[in-house]
């Protein structure tokens, strides 16, 4: 047939934008589906610790699939800049492997594959980007979170600063062999790598098909319109906030390299009139001799997530809306642009979670109903990287567990989302199935449940903590973890209480109980049992203002006890569990 339909003429951006946004979403979803189904390690295919997006050549983030937020808000754009800078002669068939924390990536365990998409004249038009957290990245110790590493050398990760991994659509086998020689469970790594390449190539193919349909000029027009639309939506949303300025602080627990912990300070300036929010992170310590340093990508993104959490869901998350957020960073700062060879092995969680929470609390200081409390903190033994030799098949294994997380921060509108995980994951990551974990690894998970009375009271309450207990089955296993939140809790906002603390201990087979430090490498023998509690999220607002019916519902559902209802919320329940209105009013009058 003839090409009657290929180039509809439309003058109005609102129509073209609507239709092309569908098509771009189709592309990033196609990439994500490929990655999800073809990847090998649980951290990708079960926990969804990956992201897919399309970038303009500016470079600006144009479209992303349901991705881990800490991966994508900022980072892909910075990385893409380095791609153009390092590779001035790119051509079709090229693909680049990137994990360098010094050049725009999140942390060394996140492997990104970037594929430049060309038109028929070999002009670079867009970049597709697929990133996933590898189960191993060649660190000295079997963990992808080398919290104690003094520098990148001790960390041991192979660093790929935008290294060409495919030429003419074929792998550069030299690089693949290097990886296979230095990365644990190489077959699993290879499967994950293939999935990343597959996702990027699917994205490339779909981009070219789309351009074939509508033409590159129309796509460029769209990109400009869509980013401008998103920026407008963001500006409008910020204009509905009150202007203000606040400085908040947050403290990371003591860790190797920071024996007294680390306090970070965040200043947030909302300029409602201009529709801009500025987050200044420069007044913070220099890089520290451990793996906690943030990268440019994660420092910027953590702040941005905190801002987006204060805004309506409808604002698209892309390079356009992000133009209205300025994040000021300093070179050589622990929460800024890291300096080689400081290690950034834990850059997606530890300090990122702390500073993101501080941004949310700063916004809460601007006026009633705004901002959020701190989201919970992770990386305790429920998230341990476990390794060992399987007793049945005698094969080595290494992978990260995701057995439990909670951590949802309260906002004016909502109680904390129970399975929020942490600030950077925002609840997008999944939880492992106990049976599947036990099928794949020699484990018994004895307990996984919400802890009663561990929620953070507030007008809206933070998520409670969860308790996890597990043992090795018929063997020894090594576990590594780097848990924040055992000393400094996730903080509440606007009068809400702090979230519960993390805690970790081991019950040895002889009954001895050993408390475990925040950062640990532990060998579990058979019949030893790890017991850990994850942090909750902070509460928001005065708990004595919480609607009594919500408190009685929490009691009914077994989240809190009757005693807690009375002591923390001033709500008195009668025998039947209903609110005693008079006693509650009288008690609250005194407590308030």
């Amino acid at each position, binding site marked *: 047939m003839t090409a*009657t339909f290929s180039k509809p003429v439309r003058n109005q951006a609102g129509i073209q934008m609507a239709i092309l946004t569908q098509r771009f979403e189709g592309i990033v979803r196609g990439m994500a589906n490929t990655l*999800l189904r073809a990847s090998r390690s649980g951290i990708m295919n079960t926990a969804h610790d990956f992201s897919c997006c399309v970038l303009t050549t500016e470079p600006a983030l144009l479209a992303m699939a349901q991705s881990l937020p800490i991966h994508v808000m900022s980072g892909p754009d910075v990385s893409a800049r380095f791609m153009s800078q390092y590779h001035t002669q790119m051509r079709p068939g090229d693909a680049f492997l990137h994990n360098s924390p010094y050049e725009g990536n999140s942390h060394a365990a996140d492997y990104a594959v970037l594929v430049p998409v060309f038109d028929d004249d070999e002009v670079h038009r867009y970049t597709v980007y697929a990133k996933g957290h590898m189960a191993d990245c060649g660190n000295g110790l079997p963990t992808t979170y080398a919290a104690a590493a003094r520098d990148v050398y001790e960390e041991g990760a192979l660093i790929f600063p935008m290294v060409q991994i495919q030429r003419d659509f074929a792998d550069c086998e030299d690089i693949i062999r290097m990886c296979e020689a230095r990365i644990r469970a190489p077959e699993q790594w290879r499967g994950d790598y293939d999935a990343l390449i597959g996702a990027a190539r699917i994205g490339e193919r779909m981009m070219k098909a789309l351009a074939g349909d509508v033409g590159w000029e129309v796509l460029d027009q769209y990109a400009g319109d869509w980013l401008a639309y998103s920026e407008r939506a963001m500006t409008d949303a910020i204009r509905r906030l009150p202007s203000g300025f606040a400085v908040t602080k947050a403290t990371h627990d003591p860790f190797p390299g920071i024996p007294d912990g680390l306090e970070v300070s965040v200043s947030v300036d909302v300029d409602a009139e201009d529709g801009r929010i500025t987050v200044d992170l420069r007044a913070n310590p220099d890089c520290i001799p451990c793996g906690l340093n943030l990268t440019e990508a994660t420092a910027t993104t953590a702040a941005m*997530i905190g801002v987006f*959490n204060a805004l309506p869901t409808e604002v698209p998350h892309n390079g356009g809306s992000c133009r209205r957020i300025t994040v000021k960073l300093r070179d050589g700062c622990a929460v800024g642009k890291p300096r080689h060879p400081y290690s950034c092995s834990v850059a997606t969680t530890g300090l990122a979670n702390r500073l993101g929470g501080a941004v949310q609390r700063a916004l809460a200081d601007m006026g009633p109903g705004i901002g959020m409390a701190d989201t919970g903190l992770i990386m305790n033994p429920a998230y341990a990287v476990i390794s060992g030799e399987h007793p049945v098949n005698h094969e080595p294994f290494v992978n990260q567990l995701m057995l439990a997380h909670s951590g949802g921060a309260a906002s004016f509108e909502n109680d904390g989302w129970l399975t929020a995980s942490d600030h950077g994951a*925002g609840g*997008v990551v999944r939880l492992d199935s106990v*049976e599947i974990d036990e*099928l794949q690894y020699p484990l018994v998970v004895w307990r996984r449940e919400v802890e009663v009375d561990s929620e953070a009271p507030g007008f809206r309450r933070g998520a409670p903590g*969860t308790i996890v207990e597990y043992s090795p*089955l018929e063997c020894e296993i090594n576990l590594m973890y780097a848990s924040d939140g055992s000393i400094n809790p996730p903080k509440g906002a606007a009068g809400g209480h702090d979230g519960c603390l993390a805690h970790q201990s081991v019950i040895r087979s002889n009954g001895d109980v050993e408390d475990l430090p925040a950062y640990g490498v532990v060998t579990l023998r058979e019949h030893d049992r790890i017991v850990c509690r994850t942090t909750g999220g902070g509460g928001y607002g005065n708990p004595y203002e919480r609607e009594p019916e919500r408190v009685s519902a929490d009691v009914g559902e077994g989240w809190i006890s009757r005693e807690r209802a009375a002591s923390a919320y001033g709500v008195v329940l009668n025998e039947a569990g209903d609110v005693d209105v008079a006693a509650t009013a009288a008690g609250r009058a005194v407590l308030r």
Partner: protein
Amino acid sequence: MRASVDTGGTFTDLVLEHDDGRFSLHKAPTTPDDPPTGIIDAIDIAAFELGLSRTSLLSQLTTLSHATTHPLNALLIGRTSRTGLFVTEGHRDILLLREGGREHFNSREAFPRPLVPRELTFEVAERVVRGGRVEMPLDVDRARDAVRRALELGIEAAAVVFLWSTVNADHELQMSEIIRAAAPDLPQTLSHQLSASLREYRRASASCIDASLKPMMRRYLTRLEAVLVENSFAGRLLIVTSNGGLLDLSEVIDAPIHTIRSGPAMAPVAGLKVAMSEIGGDSVVVTDTGGTSYDVTGVNSGLIPLSRETWLGKPFHSPLIGFPAVDVQSSGAGGGSIAWVDSGGLLRLGPMSAGADPGPMCYERGGEFPTLTDACLTLGYLEPDRFLGGRLRLDVQLARDGVNDHVAIPLGVELEVGAAAVVDLATAHMARAIEDCCIRNGLALENTILVAGGGAAGLNAASVAQRVGIRWTVIPSIAPVLSAAGALISPVMKDIATSQPHRISTLSTEDIATIFGSLLDRARQFLGEVTSPDMLSGIDLFAEGHYLREVWDIDVALGPCELGLPTADRISELFHARHEQLYSTKHTGSEIEIVTWRARAWCQREHIELPVIFAKPKDSTSRRTTRVFFAEAGWLDCTAYDHDEIAPHENIVGPVIVSSDATTIVVPPGCKIQKTAQGGVIIDGGTGER
């Protein structure tokens, strides 16, 4: 005579297969408070139209196949039985924690409530570990105590979900006895009997759904049967199940979860049959356009895919059903989806929907916002006097005003351009859903056939196909009742499965014989009970597994058991091929782990014809000219045909409109159509530029 009846949200569809091989369609409004009444109403309407009495029609039926949304609705509005859940100690929050995840990090919605509240979840001290070994025996005293507390709290049904019960069921069986001793008549669901799947959350969810439906579905199905029998029905009552088959009443009463996706499961069955009969292809995308949603299923090489990842309601804000159901993905773009322009000037379609009530503005039932249907009417796709055979007159002016006020003016475009944009956006939504589905199922679009069902299917099916690069689209005569038609041709069928994780490399011929031996015994017993002498029957074998360390299982067809049990090498070969088909890669050097083994027993009549519904002949020819707007060409004079006046195999070139009592097909310029002997319309979108 045979019948199928599909109780949908709005209408109850009845399809009759007459003894002369003809089919007829009859519709009545659904009566949600008492669904059997709606079924009898539909039967009365059919009887009237055929000049029969209710009892004489019913007495002529040899089978009646029934699909219903009744249990799904009961779950969605919380009208199911108070259910107690008994779980392994330490795991009381299986239903609360689920598998984590949510769609957006900054969504504002409250955390969803669990299917069974924590108050009614009871821990039992017991533990089985990998391999089925008992690590901690069941504590009988504490189990009895849990049952006593549950009964005190007034539970009306019980679900038992212990870890690893699919590999060692002893503790669940023991618990069942303990419950029965205390409450002999309390309905129970044991997770290992319901679902052979690892992943405790999904099994728990399925078990609780099943248990909570038992009292209600027993009442409903026995009442339906009684009403039918009272009215002289003496045939076989079969219930449509979520896996695309039929089961006898007693089986469904024992495990009502089978019915939870019975409506959507049948469209792919019918769609596959359509593709095979009309074009001779078995790789097909089947779509069903409804008032509020667009359902899509991808069938790769004739295998209708099953999924355990179907949500009861909104993804991440409702439970996963956790029970295998035909993989039907719904997206929110239907005829009733509302078109609007947001404050940033972006055209949007949905997620709000006018549904069937008040419906589109042009229905004149008080709809205040323009819908996809209104846009189609504005463009001349629908003829106002001929909608649903003239039974519902559409108000063009209301539609035009609505599209103008809410779409065209805010966008600053001409009315027609605005309306065309709405249809185009719907097409983009649908195309995305199809692309998603093809990637998930490894379908290559250029070799795939689109079968479009639903009353509104024809309005933009040709455009959707062109957008995604599918050449052949079939709009069968049964398009408006794809589900009900599917129920007439699907087999009586049961999946019998066991969860026994094995690595292929360690699997001996004896192991395979042992695993399948017990499944085949059960399958043959089932067939013995359900097969009549005039039926064909068979048992097909399947394995679900993954490459070592992959965690998502793929479903591999191992062929009919008559060909003998497959060897380990044969299973590997089939697994690699299927993996390549789905994901475009295979790893022949990798170890394969099979987790679930399945035997599918089926039986059906010897000759299954594609149902064909011919329109009633008109008194006179009514070929006419009508004005239709196409975005690329503007207003064109189009010939409008009545479906029944087109001769089979006559070639017609677009732009044309083809309408019948139940559906309208818009054929854009450049597309060609042909009507087949079976009454379907095949659209050839060409193979040129997409």
